[in-house]
């Protein structure tokens, strides 16, 4: 049976190369490209031109929809945003080009500067606090354990339990986190004031979200750090786990203590991860949109994205996009600074 149809047995490499030379009539070729592959006659399939066309047909077919979605709903809004920031667009049909007017207005807008002050405070404070805590706990997890025989460093017992619990906040919606903390910070029936009262620290009870700027800033910072510490513990303990053990043993033999080992061995070796994490956390802090919009009362504090959102709701579309462009510039400048500041020679190991 098989020998009856030798042409249809799977061709070897040489047979395929030879088959590439067979040419099918152009009309048939064109028809085959337009119809589904299962109608393609065998002799057309062996035509090299058909195979090329078939490949490109497949590539175009698979890329068309993803690229169309991406271009229409992601790329084009970004490009439009930059254009509209130079117009007086209010959502209507026309948008007149007004040059730098929006940016000039922004420069003179006290409400913008207030929001920018808050955003920059968060941008400076949140990464430092979150990353310090993240590195501290990660080091405790990977190197804080009891020594076992022949090991320079050892992880604590139950390290995966700690990582699982620490990571909880990261899997929740930031809007839900904001609602949870809104209740925690509640003046009369909140967890925080309740706990402070229970341990006799009544003096520290505060109307956290009652409208005071500094308290609201503290609350926002707390929630930001709380949400992300677990993330960095997991990130940094993975990075620390990748450091070869013999480096720790060498340091120990040279008489280095825990602190020296940490600052001279661990930290330099995870520095790339720290820097990336710093930029990522900075961008999260610069956003902080949902936390502030949901949790913080409007009169207490605003961050720049919330300020942008409110201008958008008022219909000041051109002005709102200009704020967005400024935010983008902020985050790019911040990233460049961190890259420059944190630039050390890369250590290979």
């Amino acid at each position, binding site marked *: 049976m098989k020998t009856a149809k030798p042409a249809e047995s799977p061709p070897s490499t040489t047979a395929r190369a030879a088959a590439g030379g067979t040419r099918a009539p152009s009309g048939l070729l064109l028809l085959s490209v337009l119809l589904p592959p299962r109608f393609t006659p065998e002799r057309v399939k062996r035509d090299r031109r058909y195979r090329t066309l078939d490949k490109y047909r497949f590539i175009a077919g698979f890329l068309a929809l993803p690229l169309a979605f991406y271009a229409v709903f992601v790329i084009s809004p970004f490009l439009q945003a930059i254009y509209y920031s130079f117009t007086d667009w209010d959502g209507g049909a026309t948008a007149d080009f007004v040059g730098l007017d929006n940016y000039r207005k922004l420069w003179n807008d006290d409400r913008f500067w207030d929001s920018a002050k808050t955003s920059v405070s968060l941008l400076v404070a949140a990464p430092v606090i979150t990353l310090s805590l993240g590195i501290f*706990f990660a080091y405790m997890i990977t190197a804080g354990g009891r020594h076992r025989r022949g090991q320079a460093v050892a992880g604590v017992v139950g390290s995966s339990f700690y990582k699982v619990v620490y990571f909880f906040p990261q899997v929740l*919606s930031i809007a839900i986190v904001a609602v949870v903390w809104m209740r*925690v910070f509640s003046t009369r029936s909140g967890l925080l004031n309740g706990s402070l009262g229970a341990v006799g620290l009544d003096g520290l009870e505060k109307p956290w979200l009652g409208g005071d700027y500094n308290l609201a800033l503290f609350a926002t910072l707390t929630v930001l750090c709380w949400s992300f*510490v677990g993330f960095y513990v997991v990130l940094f303990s993975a990075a620390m786990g990748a450091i070869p053990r013999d480096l720790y043993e060498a340091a120990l033999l040279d008489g280095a203590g825990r602190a020296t080992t940490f600052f001279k061995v661990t930290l330099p070796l995870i520095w790339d991860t720290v820097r990336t994490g710093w930029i990522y956390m900075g961008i999260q802090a610069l956003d902080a949109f949902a936390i502030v919009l949901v949790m913080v009362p409007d009169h207490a504090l605003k961050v720049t994205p919330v300020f942008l959102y409110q201008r958008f709701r008022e219909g000041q579309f051109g002005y709102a996009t200009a704020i*967005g462009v400024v935010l983008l510039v902020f985050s790019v400048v911040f990233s460049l600074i961190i890259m420059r500041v944190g630039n050390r020679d890369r250590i290979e190991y």
Partner: protein
Amino acid sequence: MTTAPTERTERSERTGRGRRARETEGAALNVFSHAFLVVWVVLAAGPLVWVAVTAFRSSGDILSDPLGLPSTLHWENFSNAWTEAKIGRYALNSLVILAGSLTGTMLLGSMAAYVIARFTFPGNRFIFLLFAGGMMFPVILALVPLFTIMDNLSLLDTRHGLMIAYIAYSLPFTTFFLTSFFRTLPTGVQEAAMVDGASHTRTFFQIMLPMAKPGLVSIGIFNFLGQWNQYLLPLLLNNESEDNYVLPQGLASLAVSQGYRGDWGALFAGLTIAMLPVLVVYAVFQRQVQAGLTAGALK
């Protein structure tokens, strides 16, 4: 002859002492580190446990003493949250949208990634960089134009509109991640399938996709959490009717409205209902979730 043994004993004494010192230091540090680590366990899980416990208390009790335990289990908080506070409806909305958007994201993302990873054609590199670059844009900048584009296409306040937006904004990272994943798969299998006469499409769906399963699972969980937790996009594109809210939106508005109504029990129950499925998914897939989400940061 006589010096050698003394030296050896000396050395062994020294290392013995050294090890003992190390062990005590290790033990001290061990206690110390567990103490600190437990403190953060309490801080990280405390608020969530408090919400879950408080969900069983009556609103009056919550106001009079925020820290108390439930005297009797007020299950009615949960039914109130589910029906009157519409948490059930919001959960259903979230589920329907997620079903569409997650399927779409995985399908379109893996299609684009496969083509970019496995075929050479002009513009390949450019398209890859186009997707990779999209990961760096802050969504807030696109806010205003996205709103008008959706409005012009009559996609505002519709379910499919929200699905499309989720898909579009998930594509950069999904494509980026899966492209590097498809590159790691062996080329021989793909060639063998082609030689056997399978079409490109069939090779993709029946050979390559099953082989890429580990990568699809990681990025699938990543997108599941990201889209389930999405707040900014629904706030912008799905804000007209309260009946269409997704879960995070619904809870944010509930936090305000229950404040007026004074039904705190239902709010806490609603929060518990909203948090539970995500925490369960996380508990089951914790290793993949941790790996997936931290990989997202290192893009």
